[in-house]
């Protein structure tokens, strides 16, 4: 099947993209609002067509450790979950980062803390972009704002994961996960052959010792100086990633006096608020970070420094605002507007918040 336009949910787009981009394995556990990922995969049965392994694991703990091991064996593997489940995965993500393995994890965020709600939220920003698990590591974080991006970011996520040998998160939310939109899907790409992996992933424990010596995948190093050297290597990758792979979208920022900074579904809502504000003569633009880590600091600094004020619009109690303030070195006033606990702000509400900030 060639490229085609289809109507699907964001969660289904994740699953469909995985099958079509040549993913080797998905390991997951049901949790609202992302269960359609596993459901779609089980309905499509890619193990009969592309050979992709799909397994409903006994828990998120098992899922993330299956991902860890699958990645250790050189395979393109992924999982998905929602906030409470993603919290359970943090130890595993730390191991994946520590062992320098590529893996993709999708978090379709719901409101917390605790069991919280099943409604959409962006309250896992800190957890995802600041570490979440133990140790000095970062999750490369992609924030889709449409079902098309849910689809596109699966392959992009794998590419970045293998480029840096680091876990990549797709930080979505219940809106993008559940909404149905049209999506252009790609043709099926073949999965990597074992020969290709043998050649291109010399770090992988494939069982074949083809590099002439046994390969060990571990995140353990008992000598502090050696562990520091490993950390230096990992940090160097992160500096390179910040340099090369920070992504954003700037909307109507050129003549703007104010900007919204918002990602994911909050950014989608802000697009409407920009339209409403401009109809009233307020010159406002929008910066939409696409990577939340690395945060598009340079762009926010450059564009933000020209503004009178910045409004960070988030579906949380104020998390990304810290990165926005750091980006402009607190030289420009930055305020936060947010709804949380599963409540989605309306474009008019955000416009009102903008007007209040301007006064």
């Amino acid at each position: 099947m060639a490229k085609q336009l289809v109507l699907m949910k964001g969660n289904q787009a994740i699953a469909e993209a995985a099958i079509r981009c040549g993913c080797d394995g998905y390991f997951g556990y049901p949790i609202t609002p992302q269960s359609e990922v596993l459901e779609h995969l089980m309905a499509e049965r890619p193990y009969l067509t592309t050979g992709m392994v799909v397994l409903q694991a006994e828990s998120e703990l098992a899922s993330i450790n299956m991902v860890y091991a699958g990645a250790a064996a050189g395979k393109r593997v992924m999982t998905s979950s929602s906030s409470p489940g993603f919290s359970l995965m943090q130890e595993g993500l730390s191991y994946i980062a520590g062992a320098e393995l590529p893996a993709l994890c999708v978090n379709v965020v719901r409101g917390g803390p605790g069991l919280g709600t099943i409604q959409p939220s962006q309250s896992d920003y800190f957890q995802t972009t600041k570490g979440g698990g133990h140790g000095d590591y970062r999750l490369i974080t992609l924030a889709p704002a449409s079902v098309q991006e849910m689809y596109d970011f699966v392959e992009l996520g794998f590419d970045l994961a293998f480029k840096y040998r680091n876990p990549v998160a797709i930080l979505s939310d219940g809106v993008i996960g559940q909404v149905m939109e049209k999506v252009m899907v790609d043709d099926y790409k073949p999965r990597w052959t074992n020969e290709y992996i043998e050649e291109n992933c010399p770090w992988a424990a494939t069982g074949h010792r083809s590099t002439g010596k046994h390969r060990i995948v571990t995140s353990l190093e008992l000598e502090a100086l050696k562990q520091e050297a490993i950390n230096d290597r990992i940090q160097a990758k992160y500096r390179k990633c910040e340099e090369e792979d920070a992504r954003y979208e700037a909307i109507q920022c050129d003549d703007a006096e104010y900007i919204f900074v918002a990602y994911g579904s909050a950014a989608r809502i802000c697009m409407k608020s920009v339209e409403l504000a401009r109809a009233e003569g307020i010159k406002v633009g929008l910066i939409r970070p696409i990577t939340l880590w690395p945060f598009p600091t340079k762009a926010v600094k450059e564009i933000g420094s020209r503004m009178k004020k910045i409004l960070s619009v988030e579906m949380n109690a104020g998390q990304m605002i810290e990165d926005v303030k750091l980006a402009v070195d607190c030289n420009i006033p930055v305020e936060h507007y947010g709804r949380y606990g599963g409540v989605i702000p309306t474009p008019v509400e955000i416009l009102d918040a903008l007007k209040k900030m301007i006064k």
Partner: protein
Amino acid sequence: MTREDIIKPENLVYKRTPVLTDATMHYCPGCGHGVVHRIIAEVIEEMGIQDNVIGISPVGCSVLAYNYFDVDFVEAAHGRAPACASAIKRLRPETFVFSYQGDGDLASIGCGEVVHACNRGENITMIFINNGIYGMTGGQMAPTTLEGMETVTCPYGRDPKIMGHTMRLTEMLAQLPGTYYVTRQAVYTPAAARKCKKAIRQAFENQKLNKGVSFVEVTSNCNSGWKMTPVQANKWMEENTLKYFPLGDMKVDGKFDPKFIERVGTFDQPNETIFSLRKK
């Protein structure tokens, strides 16, 4: 006949397998881990699968097992080796996959993963070293610690009223339909070690059949944790541990061993002998 006459290549009957690396193992003198490592390595050598096997090491004393086997290895998070082994076997079904765990890793923190991997009938080999104690962290109580046995976290002996009962996880796993071969072995005598090798060989051979989990528990010692000499520890194990954890097959070729069925009927008996022994 002089020593020189005997020591000739044609007379060699036993040497260290090249599937073990030259690294000196960090285990305490007399620890059963070393024997089981050696047996697994010998089985890998004899089956000729050194270039088609992936091992999963746990967290605990055997965390560094990957340094001792000259085969590809993945070090798992605490308790998650069965999940790791499941994923690797499904993604690389042509490869022999084995997990290696201690009793803290497998029976305590990783209890969920091992039960579900066994229940799914993953086509893997699991090696479970049961020495009734946490060795690496300094001799704390494990789920497998015998009633009345003293450890640093039950210094007055394990009291099942407060601390729960000694857990026979292997017997539980044998009852899952996903397990194909379940056995309990030991390595404290030459005869036991030879028998254990046969069992581990069987557990690896079974992967060719794709019929489910092959699970080998090796009841072992922890002379440091038990505060005994290696020789005393082996004797103590024979007199105490093996009464509660009897050796032998529980399930062969997917069928229960009749002796095992007879034995499971007696599992509700309290372990008075050990309790009184340690009280002295």
